[in-house]
């Protein structure tokens, strides 16, 4: 895997939604840097702001209710903030450079157009090709994502595809103009485990072939840990932990990450399923201090008052086995960060 410079820098991204009940802070100050050819995972519960982060980056938040601020810099496009870019500029970037795939493949395609038509539309959107060229490219894409008899399936409508096949078609459409960054918003959530695995390995394979970067959003730590170089853990609209995948999985420094890992059911271990007690805070009346304090087993008085920030944790990378063979090379970004002032006491050697 080639390590390159940064591809995407997100700085203090905020996405506030005005609703009837008040202002929802869906994304509240998210910053990260994504390197070339890097796979970044974003994990968190439902409503933690994972999808909103992705949609804000691509500019897909509803314009009438969402207020997005901060900086999103897509480096090949120059140092400018694409959040403030004008519509035509953004349209030229989307699809051609940045592509996004969505959670529910069953509804991600237009039900009244054939898969082939939609694929051809995507192929033609950012390039001028002859009909024959476009068609052969479209068939090639379907073949590439592992759809059997692609020429015949071009004529089918989305409802004639199974969920897994449809997600493959969606991926083919997203890749139609060879984007350099793919945002995958829970691409496997609506699929069963076997298909999930196939789609994930397909995504990884395509990522390695094309050298594109990928942001993979999931609520499933197991999925994320399998495929990502780096992980961001989100809670209540904020990043609570960030670090290399192996570090975060083996030595989580934030109590929330630990709780998430503890909640993973272990194969062969029968008994009670563990969950995290309580529920996330309202994103309208956000409490002061640490947002996880209400549910945290390590909570102290100071937790409710301190001005939270991401703190660098003392490096355990030397002992994590990451530097050994098979580890992915770190691309940019700092070491492990956690939004917990007690991270050193909290951190356990093995989760």
């Amino acid at each position, binding site marked *: 895997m080639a390590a390159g410079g940064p591809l995407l820098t997100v700085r203090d991204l905020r996405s506030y939604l005005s609703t009837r009940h008040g202002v929802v802070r869906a994304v509240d100050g998210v910053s990260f840097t994504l390197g070339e050819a890097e796979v970044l995972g974003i994990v968190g519960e439902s409503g933690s702001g994972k999808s909103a982060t992705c*949609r804000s980056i*691509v500019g*897909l938040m*509803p*314009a*009438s209710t969402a207020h997005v601020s901060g900086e999103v810099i897509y480096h090949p496009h120059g140092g400018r903030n694409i959040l403030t870019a004008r519509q035509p500029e*953004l*349209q*030229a*970037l*989307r*699809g*051609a450079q*940045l*592509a*996004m*795939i*969505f*959670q*529910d493949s069953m*509804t*991600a*395609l*237009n*039900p*009244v*157009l054939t898969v082939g038509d939609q694929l051809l*539309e*995507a192929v033609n*959107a*950012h390039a001028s090709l002859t009909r024959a060229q476009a068609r052969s490219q479209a068939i090639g894409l379907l073949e590439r994502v592992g759809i059997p008899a692609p020429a015949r399936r071009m004529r089918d409508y989305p*409802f004639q595809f199974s969920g897994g096949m449809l997600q493959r078609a*969606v991926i083919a*459409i*997203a890749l*139609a103009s060879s984007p350099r960054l793919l945002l995958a918003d829970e691409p496997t959530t609506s699929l069963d485990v076997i298909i999930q695995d196939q789609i994930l390995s397909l995504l990884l394979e395509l990522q390695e072939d094309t050298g594109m970067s990928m942001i993979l959003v999931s609520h499933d730590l197991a999925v994320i840990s399998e495929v990502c170089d780096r992980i961001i853990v989100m809670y209540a609209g904020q990043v609570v932990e960030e670090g290399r995948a192996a570090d975060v999985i083996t030595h989580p420094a934030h109590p929330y990450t630990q709780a998430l890992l503890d909640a993973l059911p272990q194969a062969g271990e029968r008994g009670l399923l563990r969950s995290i007690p309580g529920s996330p805070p309202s994103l309208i009346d956000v409490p002061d201090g640490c947002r996880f304090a209400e549910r945290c087993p390590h909570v102290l008085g100071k937790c409710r008052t301190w001005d939270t920030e991401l703190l660098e944790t003392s490096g355990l990378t030397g002992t994590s086995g990451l530097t050994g063979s098979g580890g992915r090379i770190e691309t940019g970004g700092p070491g492990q960060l956690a939004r917990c002032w007690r991270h050193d006491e909290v951190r356990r050697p093995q989760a």
Partner: protein
Amino acid sequence: MSTMWAATPSEQLMRMATRAAGRRRSATRRRLPLYIGLAMLVLAVAAAVLAPVLVSQSPTTIDVLHPLAPPLTPGHALGTDQFGRDVLARILYGARIDLAIAFGATIVTLVGGTIIGLVAGYLGGRIDSVLMRLVDLFFAFPFLVLIIAIVAMLGPSILNMFVAIWITSWVAYARIMRAQAVVAKRQQYVLAARALGYGRLRIMFRHILPNTASAVIIFSMVDAVGNIILAASLGFLGLGAQPPSPEWGTMISEGQNYLLTSWWLATMPGLAVVFVGIAFSLVGDGLADLLRTGER
């Protein structure tokens, strides 16, 4: 347990599937209203087009020697009016005017209102507010009063009646389409299309419109009936087609003076209105059924 069943599970399944297949075959029967409505419409259009072939009399030739002849008089199947004009001829030629109103007025408002609603719903924001307040403004007035006012202002004629309908009737389409577009723009396929960098026009007309057009199309059938009745009403009030021309509403209006002595003058064109109205209603109903079962 299984011995209690007379048939094996697979036989039972087979029976259920066979029954379901039988039900599918009767889909034709479910579409019967649509087919009947279409047949009636075709009949009406054919009658209008073939009027010179079907009747030899002109609809405006006056025959003072045979006024108010009752139906089934030789040479006058539906009788004659107070000027001796053949009622059947007038109804058939009148179909040209009334059907032209049904189609012409409806298609223009359908297309215009749909585009306006789509744009308002998809773009939202200020454009949406302005367009929808305009719609509210039209809805606030009694519809017929508004049309009468416009026609009276422009001067009574068939063209001005068209103009009045065009000006006022698009609002219902705009409102229906806007509601559909607002829902559709949150659908994932629209988000996906935006994520692919497609332009607004492409998203609106290629992705949203085909998925949401059924509601306005169905409504247009109801509206066509409404427009025929409207044209008849305006004719009746003397604001639509002017007397010599054989428009159904005008005929009813003229015939009302003779309702007690020569009932056919007003009744026959009235039946024609009913016939076309039922035809459009059946088509609208059938289309609604067809497009609804076609949904996911």
